[in-house]
């Protein structure tokens, strides 16, 4: 009854967390299960077979590393957007948000170039189990990157209005939580698909 006992005074009852943040964390919890299921399947098949190192090293470590650095940097610019909102720096908010969107687009462009090269070589999803996982995992991740870019572009559109940062800037934290999660997924996909 302890919850109820001191529950009579003042404002409406709630947790200490803003609704939007709570909602995005519930969403991320379910996303962990989506990518978790995919990564578990990958690990199981890899353990079951003789290993995929030959196919895996067909991937360009250079392009994978560049893309990793791009996503890590975009996470940094994204968190700077959030920090700029906290400090009321409107110009910095827009600049870093634009940089985040741009870095996301560059990531997708490099990914697209890799896809094109693979498909030209005949390394299509049906080629082998590794390529099936490669396209399945990076494809689903790429769709998430695209979703993040769209969400950030929407935020940029409203933040570009006069007074937009003050009014909508708090959304940078939600977009950021999602964007960092997508980054974390890539942090695991990179060794799984390029290095290991």
């Amino acid at each position: 009854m302890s919850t109820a006992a001191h529950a009579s005074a003042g404002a409406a009852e709630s947790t200490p967390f803003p609704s939007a943040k709570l909602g995005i964390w519930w969403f991320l919890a379910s996303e962990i299960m989506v990518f978790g299921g995919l990564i578990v399947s990958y690990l199981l098949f890899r353990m079951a077979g003789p290993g995929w190192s030959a196919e895996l090293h067909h991937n360009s470590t250079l392009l994978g590393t560049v893309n990793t650095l791009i996503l890590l940097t975009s996470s940094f610019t994204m968190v700077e957007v959030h920090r700029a909102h906290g400090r009321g720096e409107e110009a910095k908010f827009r600049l870093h948000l634009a940089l985040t969107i741009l870095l996301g687009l560059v990531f997708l462009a490099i990914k697209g170039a890799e896809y094109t090269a693979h498909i030209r070589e005949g390394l299509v999803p049906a080629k082998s189990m590794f390529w099936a996982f490669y396209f399945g995992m990076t494809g689903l991740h790429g769709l998430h990157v695209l979703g993040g870019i769209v969400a950030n572009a929407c935020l940029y559109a409203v933040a570009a209005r006069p007074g937009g940062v003050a009014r909508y800037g708090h959304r940078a934290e939600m977009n950021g939580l999602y964007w960092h999660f997508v980054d974390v997924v890539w942090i695991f996909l990179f060794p799984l698909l390029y290095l290991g």
Partner: protein
Amino acid sequence: MSGTTAAAGGHHGEPGGFLRKYVFSADHKMIARQYMFISLFWAAVGGYFAYIIRWQLAHPEADIPLFGRPIGPDEYNAFVTMHGTIMVFFVAMPLLLASFGNFLIPLMIGARDMAFPRLNMLSVWVLGAASALLLLSFFVEGGPAAGGWTGYPPLSARTAYVGADKGMDLWLLALALEFASFLMGGINFLVTPLNMRTRGMGLLRMPLFVWMVMIASLLFLLSVGPLVAGAVMLLLDRNLGTSFFLASGGGDPLLWQHLFWFFGHPEVYVILLPGLGAMMEVMPTFSRKTIFGYRPIIVAVLVAGALSFVVWAHHQYISGLDPRLATPFSVTTILISVPFALIVFALLATLWGGSIRLATPMWFAVGGLAVFIFGGLTGIFNGSAAVDIYIHDTYFVVAHFHSTFFSALFLAGFAAIYYWYPKMFGRMMNEALGQIHFWGTFLFFLAVFVPMHLVGVGGMMRRIANPGQYEFLAPLSGLNRMITMSAVLLLLSQFFFAFNFFWSMFRGRRAPDNPWEGTTLEWTTPSPPPHGNWPGEVPQVHHPPYGYGLPGAGEDWVPQHRPAPSGAGAGR
């Protein structure tokens, strides 16, 4: 804070225009009604398919009345697949979780709307899109999906197989959209009770229905991910030629079963818990007693929810699962009966010694509990591997899960509809028609599914279109015809409901604010509630729900928003 929270909803006027009010509405009460109509539409379709299935089993070679011709094995598989898919994903979840969850959470916790009203509107529209895709799949080349509601590969993994053509892709996409819809809904169902309770409404003062919807949403959010991953892999198998689930290409069909049932078992509770929650609201009100064991019930449901993540392989005992895994999964499965026994006994103890009012909602709640006990007990047979190896994929299993699903989905669902209909539509349903509906539903349900256990133990397999082909099933044909007759009568009984539902909407007696003398907050506002839920201030809460049978009070009940009379104690 999100700028879209509708805490201020009451201060805006009602949105104008037909489209804004009835179609593109962000009001949780209108969204609840939209979900209800979607689910009732699909319930009619699913019921019609059940009728076709049953008729085919009783009279395999004959023309099916209202369909016009007999169906072959391929079509039979399609009807079975669609019946299961529709009833689980397009009737049970929209009706219990989404419709009543949407309608009741804000009203029960004292909020003006859900935490994310526009996300809420999006969720119902995504479900509408999913429904459209599923409908479309009936009319594409190759017919609808026929791989069973579980979609097991390899049958589902190659478009060349019968019943796995374009219809199967549409089926997968419809399910994916349905999951997306319930992800959005689930986030609302979790955040709203956590953050938008009225003054005095502690977490442990919320009505149990809200707890049940929260835990069901939690289970859904945490279990659906691996199946989404599996669905992506299956779509790649079907359309890009990969072999995730095809042994011929180095894949493993068992992996799909694991991914499916890792979701599938918690999903059972996603459907069951809101139904149980409805019973937990109806029973105290109609026995004029407080619920027995409020907090133990919550703990038991949390324990059952946690256990539901470690029982999934009990669906796979004869699928080639490692036999050494069967025992641990049997143990966890049988363990899960402990918390559910606690819940059932708590509900029985709530009835014990109450001054029971036998109105239609109470009949359905008590009938639902009885059938649920019965279905739960046969689950112990299925859960233990040694017995399951004999009865797996027979009609015993079909009878078992219909006993649990039908009690949670239809008996508890009807209890909820009869109980909250006055609040939802502002008019009372007809009591006499309701009681006829109950007795028809309850008795003919038993007449269908009790003999079905015998058919199953007799060895009749699921998913066969013509039992007449098997000599050893010949002695069961009489029972099969009797089951089919009962099923037809069960379905005909639903016309009493359909008539009552639509007739009462326009001609029913006007409902007072609190027709059942309930204590929770939804009964403190007009029926139907206005936009913003309360015309004036949102009531403040002074004590736990279910303050019934209080000797000191003038009436025998104290609503949650009224301070308890001195010396009465407000129930616990």
